[in-house]
């Protein structure tokens, strides 16, 4: 099985690149003939990725969530999977390349640095941790998709204001739809992150008795959670809309990325497992 895992590890970035390429080509050309082919591509990529994650879990006897490169491959899968569901539900097919490219980057980094890890820290062998990580990753996927739609909103907004009627104008859905997609993705991300935080708070004292509440990871996550909470609250109960909310969502996403880098790569946090 190990050689097959290695083969899939090489194949996955290629599949993501292929899927991205066909989505990007379709975005540039806008030809009807690729509409179904690109959906087939994304489906095959996700299927192969799911097989990879399942075999990896079975072979190494732990879900691939114990180090940052394992997490990256799960993140790549969950971002594209969330987008795929969104595409099926809304039938909006023109925004794929902007999201799939992110999965490609995560998968490429993962494939380059991931190692065959049989032994994991005792602290990571917990069911609560599994739920915590999965909900956190899906939450961050929601924030990623929200930020991408936010970015596309800002571009279309600017083009419409400046009378530029190019690819962005011709291929993207309208401003209201982009704003809605960004908002709903953020709400979903927020709910999942809230679940991850609650589980984390329950699990944390058991796993790390000496943890500190001023840990960079906890501060970063709290800040991200607070930003999205403000955004959702002001949208629902106040009159914030459009650019303000979008900028909030993008800021939340950037803080989430920085928080992950700080805690995992610079080993400044108890949350660093690599």
């Amino acid at each position: 099985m190990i050689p097959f895992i290695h083969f899939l590890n090489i194949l996955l970035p290629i599949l993501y690149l292929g899927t991205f390429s066909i989505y990007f080509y379709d975005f540039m050309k806008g030809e009807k003939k690729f509409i179904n082919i690109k959906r087939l591509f994304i489906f095959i990529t996700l299927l192969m990725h799911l097989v990879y994650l399942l075999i990896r879990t079975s072979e190494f006897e732990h879900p691939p969530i114990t180090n940052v490169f394992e997490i990256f491959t799960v993140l790549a899968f969950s971002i594209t999977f969330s987008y795929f569901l969104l595409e099926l539900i809304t039938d909006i097919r023109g925004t794929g390349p902007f999201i799939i490219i992110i999965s490609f980057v995560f998968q490429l980094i993962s494939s380059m640095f991931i190692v065959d890890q049989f032994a994991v820290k005792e602290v990571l062998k917990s069911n609560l941790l599994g739920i915590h990580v999965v909900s956190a990753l899906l939450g961050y996927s929601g924030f990623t998709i929200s930020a991408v739609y936010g970015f596309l909103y800002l571009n279309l907004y600017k083009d419409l204001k400046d009378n530029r009627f190019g690819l962005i104008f011709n291929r993207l859905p309208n401003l209201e739809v982009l704003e809605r997609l960004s908002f709903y993705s953020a709400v979903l991300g927020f709910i999942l992150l809230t679940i991850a935080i609650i589980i984390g708070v329950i699990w944390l004292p058991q796993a790390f008795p000496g943890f500190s509440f001023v840990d960079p990871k906890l501060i970063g996550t709290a800040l991200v959670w607070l930003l999205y909470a403000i955004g959702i609250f002001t949208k629902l109960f106040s009159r914030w809309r459009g650019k303000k909310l979008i900028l909030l969502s993008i800021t939340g996403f950037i803080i989430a990325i920085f928080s992950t880098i700080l805690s995992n790569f610079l080993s400044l946090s108890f949350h660093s497992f690599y």
Partner: protein
Amino acid sequence: MQLIAVSINHKTAAVQLREALHLSDDEIREIIIKAKDNFIKEGLLLSTCNRTEIYGIPVSSQITHQQLQNIITDNKNSITISPENFQKFTSRESLKHLFSVISGIDSLLIGDNQIFKQVKNAFAIAEEMNFAGFLMRRVFDSAIRVGKRAISETAISEGAVTISYAAVQLIEKIFSNLSKKSALIIGTGETGEIAAKHLRDRGIGRLALSNRTFEKAERLAADLKTAVFPFDTFKDHLHKFDIIISATSAEEIIISRSDVESAMKKRNFASMVLMDIAVPRDIDPAIKKIEYVFYHDIDSLNIIVEQNLAKRKDEIPKVEKIIDDELDSFFEWYNSLQSAPTIKSIREHFDEIRAEEVEKNINKFSSEDREKLEIVTKRIINKILHHPTTELRKINESGTGAEDAATKMGIIKSLFGIDKPEHKEKT
């Protein structure tokens, strides 16, 4: 194929001449009555604001394009027509022209799908007047298929190519559901009226009009069942609308930046689209600096129109490919009609000769050999005719052009004297 056609259209004649030759549905019916049996066995008469054309199978080969042209111009004595005002088509070219017309690639506004409905209407009149026979019905079916395929398989009709449609296309890039939006049209001249009708067609939730001449706005409002605001108070209502289209003939700015700023405050900066399709402009362009205000004038709408027209032009080769496919398919069918009777005639001709010779010489054979004689002579005829029959069938299968097929069949008939009067007399 004996289909001939003449056409006066936007490529060959100025608008005044086209208008003069435009025919109402009733006029078309009258002309069909005159043309039927005298000039044309079956056919089609199409008249729109950009073209008037007649297609038909002539009652004899002596009928000329000029006679067909006269059918259209006979009752229009006051106009002067020069030869270059009419295009003339014969056989495959006639059909190709009809296919180009119905697919929109011959239209003034390339890809205009109005023409599809107009051609269908012309077909309906031909049917109603018993002007559509066996052949023309097949022509109609093929033409309709070309029109449908052009729309579904290419982007020839996609994108707005008029200012009013471009305005709607732009609005739809901002708002997702027009049924939940409201629009105010200021100025109910032709442009304003078209814009109002487009918005109504796209399902706008609430529509209101305002015009300097209140009665004129009221008349249009009655047609469209909308509200009307007096011109001097419309500014008080600006904030109530998501879309404002201004198309007045005012010489000065009628909506200033401060008007829009005030409206936006009242709307709590909910997005607002302002389309200025008047010349000179009605709305101060400085409003585009206000957040969530989308301002577009006729120049920016023209950019969209030009882009879409260019895209439609790029689609023409794809439509031409569809036309060629359908032409081939039509002539494959048509040639099969032509060659099947030819094969039958040749076989009958040879069998007659065989039977005649057998009859003449039958007494030279014994009674037991006579049956063998029948079998042997039939086998000889079959062997002789095997190759020519196969070749004729190949004409159908290969979909060779009508002229080529007709030539080949003509040679065969001429060589064997088939269909000649003396041959017919014999049979």
